């Protein structure tokens, strides 16, 4: 469990760095209405980005942060790629807790998919947990695929390939994966923002989820079961706002077994890791 502890320390460190005092976000948040996720229509990317972050970390208004709030945030994400965050680490924690299940699902060699790989930390964790598998990491953002490649190369992980593609659209219909991971863009946004994400495939694509933050998740849910092998399992990150229970019901209608494996409060939101699978005991 040493790894988990290390990750938690890492999360604690990140939180203190997250909000820059007197940043555009800091100023804006003070005049903000109480409605969560209501973004100013054409706010600066940096403001939106920081806002997004704020909902995924403990209280941001307290003075204790200002001491440490230097340039960390503006550096995070400045390369145009979603920086590993609480959701990333929660997903990794779920994979670590579920190691034996993943090893079982990929026994004698499996095919795995990390959808929306971002900075690549989830791909890296997966490639380590199941070294006998071949993994594919994909993203729509070319900066994310490049960053993931660097991370994997620096760590000497040779069991992963990378591709730029949108959800499952580039895979022939007979492909079956044994493990599918997706930490999707799950933040509720207006259509304007979602359209920007779809057209530009930039940093907006890392959070813009449209209505209830569900639009990309729902597209994923509509096809995921076709790409899952009989022993296959899916790990999906969601927010309370995404209505995880409804997601579980949708998965069940598709013939998958589904359950919640981890739940954690992060700032004002609650993150869930859901597991979907074809075998009864995976759900």
């Amino acid at each position, binding site marked *: 469990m040493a790894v988990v502890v290390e990750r938690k320390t890492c999360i604690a460190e990140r939180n203190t760095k997250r909000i820059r005092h007197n940043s555009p976000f800091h100023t804006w948040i003070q005049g903000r209405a109480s409605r969560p996720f209501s973004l100013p229509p054409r706010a600066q990317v940096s403001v939106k980005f920081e806002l997004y972050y704020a909902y995924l970390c403990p209280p941001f208004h307290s003075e204790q942060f200002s001491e440490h709030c230097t340039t960390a945030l503006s550096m995070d994400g400045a390369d145009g790629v979603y920086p590993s965050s609480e959701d990333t680490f929660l997903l990794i924690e779920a994979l670590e807790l579920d190691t034996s299940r993943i090893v079982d699902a990929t026994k004698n060699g499996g095919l795995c998919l990390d959808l929306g790989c971002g900075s690549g930390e989830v791909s890296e964790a997966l490639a380590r947990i199941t070294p006998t598998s071949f993994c594919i990491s994909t993203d729509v953002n070319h900066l994310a*695929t490049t960053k993931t490649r660097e991370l994997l190369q620096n760590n000497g992980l040779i069991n992963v*390939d990378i591709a730029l593609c949108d959800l499952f659209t580039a895979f022939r219909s007979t492909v079956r994966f044994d493990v599918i991971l997706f930490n999707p863009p799950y933040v509720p946004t207006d259509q304007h923002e979602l359209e920007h994400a779809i057209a530009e495939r930039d940093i907006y694509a890392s959070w813009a989820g449209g209505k209830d933050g569900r639009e990309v998740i729902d597209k994923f849910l509509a096809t995921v079961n076709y790409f899952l092998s009989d022993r296959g399992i899916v790990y999906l990150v969601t927010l309370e706002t995404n209505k995880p229970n409804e997601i579980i019901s949708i998965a069940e209608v598709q013939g998958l077994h589904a359950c919640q494996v981890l739940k954690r409060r992060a700032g004002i939101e609650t993150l869930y890791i859901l597991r979907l699978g074809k075998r009864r005991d995976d759900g």
Partner: protein
Amino acid sequence: MRLLTHNMLHCPRTKAYPLQLVASTCDDVQVPFSEAFIRRMLPRIQWEVFREAAAQFPDEDMLAKLPESTPQPDTLDEPTLKAIHRALLEWHVVDGTLKAENGSEYAVKNGIPNLVITEVRKESGGADDANSGDAAMDVDDKGQ
């Protein structure tokens, strides 16, 4: 990009399969051999597509050992398994092109195939044109 990945990709616009591979730069990275893995992957591979793509690699010795048609699991000997392993996992396409029969082309740059498609925004005409079902589509060519 390894051939295992190439084998799974189709044209995201038309679902045309396979995508013809033309490799301009290749690389060769050693991967520990696992017979179990190769045996597990064989039923998941479209053999003819795999074999044809493997011809892009400058490795006559390996090619000679790849059977013409889908090998039966019980007839596989070690040299054949090792040749499959090599073609499937050790050879990388670093730069190249994936061509669909309808003429669409997708680039492979620095080992990463780019299969996202972008709607071409019309310079003139209504802003809504790009959203109509039959709007012209084009292969995205953002740098990597």
